[in-house]
């Protein structure tokens, strides 16, 4: 699996992501600078990591969404290439129009860093084939603006087309406002685009890939992607 990891000024989880990709795929990702106009040849997976691109000034992700490299990412996605966008990455792809909706401030108006439980809604996608449908995983969140909101029609489409891949849930998989830490609509933590090749999610699976760090529930996502490309090859 050949990954390209986008680096915008202010991105700060690129090292965490690079470590997870290396660990799970055995291959170092290529760091791609925001001012570049092309992705490395043969890129399988584009990853947009977390952080505070451009300091979150203007709106989270708004400036990065217009960086030169994003035209290449858009073209890559249009051809069916897989894009994994996490945290600030999710905000960036929403701002870039690759995913619908917007990430608003957390309902309690504070930044929140804690482990949350996610219910994996489907296992038949390249991103979630490493999990079982209905499985509950524990991964950290670290964001101030992760409260997913879209208009009623969009939400209905996302739900109707099975494009919600992760939901905030209780440890036993129940959808419960008490476990929806940021107030997201329908407890949405991660969604797919229409074609199913762009995933945006707020939590950080890349921080839960090593047993020695306390939890490996994030491995499934990367293991699934590695499998996907192995099968495709």
């Amino acid at each position, binding site marked *: 699996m050949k990954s390209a990891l986008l680096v915008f*000024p*202010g991105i*700060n*989880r690129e*090292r*965490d992501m690079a*470590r*997870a990709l290396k660990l799970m795929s055995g291959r170092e990702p290529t760091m791609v600078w925001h001012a570049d106009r092309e992705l490395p040849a043969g890129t399988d997976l584009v990853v947009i990591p977390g*952080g*505070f691109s*451009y*300091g*979150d*000034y203007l709106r989270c992700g708004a400036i990065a969404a217009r960086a030169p490299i994003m035209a290449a990412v858009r073209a890559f996605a249009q051809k069916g290439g897989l894009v994994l966008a996490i945290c600030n990455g999710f905000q960036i792809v929403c701002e870039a129009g690759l995913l619908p909706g917007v990430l608003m401030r957390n309902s309690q108006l*504070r*930044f*929140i*860093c*804690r482990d949350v439980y996610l219910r994996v809604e489907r296992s038949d996608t390249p991103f979630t084939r490493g999990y079982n449908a209905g499985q509950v995983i524990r991964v*950290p969140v*670290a964001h*101030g603006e992760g409260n997913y909101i879209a208009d009623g029609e969009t939400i209905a489409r996302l739900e109707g087309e099975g494009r919600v891949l992760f939901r905030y849930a209780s440890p036993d998989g129940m959808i419960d406002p008490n476990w929806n830490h940021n107030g997201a609509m329908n407890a949405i933590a991660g969604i797919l685009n229409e074609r199913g090749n762009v995933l945006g999610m707020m939590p*950080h699976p*890349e*921080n839960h890939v*090593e047993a*020695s*760090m*306390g939890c490996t529930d994030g491995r499934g996502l990367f293991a699934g992607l590695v499998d996907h490309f192995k099968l495709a090859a």
Partner: protein
Amino acid sequence: MGEGREPSAFYVIPSEPAITPELIAQHGLKPDEYARLVKLIGRTPSFTELGIFSAMWNEHCSYKSSKIHLRTLPTKAPWVIQGPGENAGVIDIGDGLAVVFKMESHNHPSYIEPYQGAATGVGGILRDVFTMGARPIACLNALSFGDPKNPKTRALVAGVVAGIGGYGNSFGVPTVGGEVRFDRRYNGNILVNAMAVGIAEKDKIFYAKATGVGMPIVYLGSKTGRDGIHGATMASAEFGADAEEKRPTVQVGDPFSEKLLLEACLEIMAKSCVIAIQDMGAAGLTCSAVEMGAKGDLGVTLDLDKVPCRETGMSAYEMMLSESQERMLMVLKPDKEKEAEAIFRKWGLDFAIVGETTPTKRFIVRHGGAVMADLPIKELGDEAPVYDRHFVESRRRPAIDAASVKPPTPIADTLEKLIGSPDLCSKRWVWEQYDHVILGNTVQRPGGDAAVVRVNDGPKALALTSDVTPRYCEADPFEGGKQAVAEAWRNLTAVGARPLALTDNLNFGNPERPEIMGQLVGCIRGIGEASRALDFPIVSGNVSLYNETKFPGENLGRAILPTPTIGGVGLLDDFTKSMTLAFKAEGEAILLVGDTRGWLGQSLYLRNICGREEGAPPPVDLAAERRHGDFVRNLIRDGLVTAVHDIADGGLLVALAEMAIVSSIGAVLEAPSDHPAHGFWFGEDQARYLITAKDADIVAQRARKAGVPLRRLGATGGRVLALGDERPMPVDDLKRRFEAWLPAYMAGSPA
């Protein structure tokens, strides 16, 4: 210059105000200090020069009240690479790696403007660390707020915590630990002490000392604006009723620029372009330029016309005293200018050659074609006044015998009250606003005795903690100073680390008052004594004085509790072997390491339950600390214990409850027959740990051999804390109380 006029007339710049006694006083210079200045330069200073002197000679930058006492502190050990005097301390952790760390206060700004004050405190300390070539891997912060009932406290907590999070989260460093306390003595003067820790290659540490004549001095980072002018001078005076009016002296932070500055600096350093580097912190351009020159026995000439400014029309005075954030000064190798500039341009940062080193040892500042300052560079720093201030030793207080204290409530009720009190309750509401997992190396998150952060890919890890018990320090500065160091050492030990070195952040009131000076002197003596006894040298630090507030109608300011915060760093050879405080299983023996006398003087029991702030604090037996700590660390190394917890504020039962709460496992404990129960359970005797073990006999054998007192308290198990005949306490209920207070208070519930 006209015929026959004295040479000093050259320095009277038409647009600058005349030097009057009022102006001198406004700059925080005492008449004798001004006389010293005039004698030193042989003439009346220009306005810009007066500003430069006030910046260099204030308490914050010159350490003039504390210097002679700080010199007594132990700062050396075989593993110390750099002690105090640089941007941060540096220690060797083997494998060619070094840890760079320091703690610094941002108290006054945080009281005036909590969000930006705290944010720029974090920014400043991060710069201190990456200036030396280290990539920051963790932050901690020690926060002291006023009485929760004080109407300002809630907003200060909210602002400070948001500011720390806002800066650290965006910069991308995990905030992994610290402390939060409440006491009415901080009502008018909160404390925000921020610590940053970084990792560098041992042979690639960068220093402030300039070398070589004619080397370009380069300005890097953000532009200079009119913010933070006189910040350091403000921080060197007590607050009056006009504290709010000082808001313009507080800087505004931009963590985005800081992140870019970090990446650009590390990239430039990796290319061997840098001779010397200094961040622009307190007193900005003045302090950084003078330090680089003075340390290298060189002169510095600055051309302010080249300084990137945010606004037009800034005067030399304003530029020299601006504390705009996210700026650096570097001395570059001349042939590397182009390469360095390209790196900074790539990161979108300002880069300008603003001066050069000279052989003259003069500090010359030019602006608009005129010389605005021409001063002897060594004397600016080295000849700052040094005071041996008069001090009186604090009054000794009597020890309090537990038998003489009548317990007002049963043990179970007392524990419930203490565990839900502002000082002892869970600080989750605070640390959940800090990204504590970023970088993927946080082995132990906030809430334990010490945070544990893996170094690169391991197996080594650092243990990090910050500690002080201010009420002990006030009751007995010497013992309090010892205790702060001993507790930091103990917390590092409790996770299995070998304590290596510490940074001290000394927060006190007005040193011109002999009783406050007595606290400072006593605490420094105690810190020195403990760090010598524990081989735990001081490698960096910061002194914050004048932490007091004059309320309207009062002559004397009200000082904070003496608060010498100790930031400790320890090393684990294998991060997978770090120990935690949670009970691991049912049916394990619970053992108490160390002697218990039931010391209630200055305890939280006495203060919170009996309403008495009295007595002598617990004495610290440093030989016992060392013996007990080494014993516990060896048990951890040899895999003989399953949980370890330091016993501190609140005493034994509070520590036990904390172990139960994080694990949701209860315990059955024997009531003591040899002590009054309240003294036994809530006394704050030092040098003690709680441990659990599968095989208590081996631990007991070892204890006998090592001459360490060990007492079996009971066993883990069940879902309640059961203490002899006392009412059983469900762990879930304790947990609810432990977690309840802070979120409820911050949501607006009465304190």
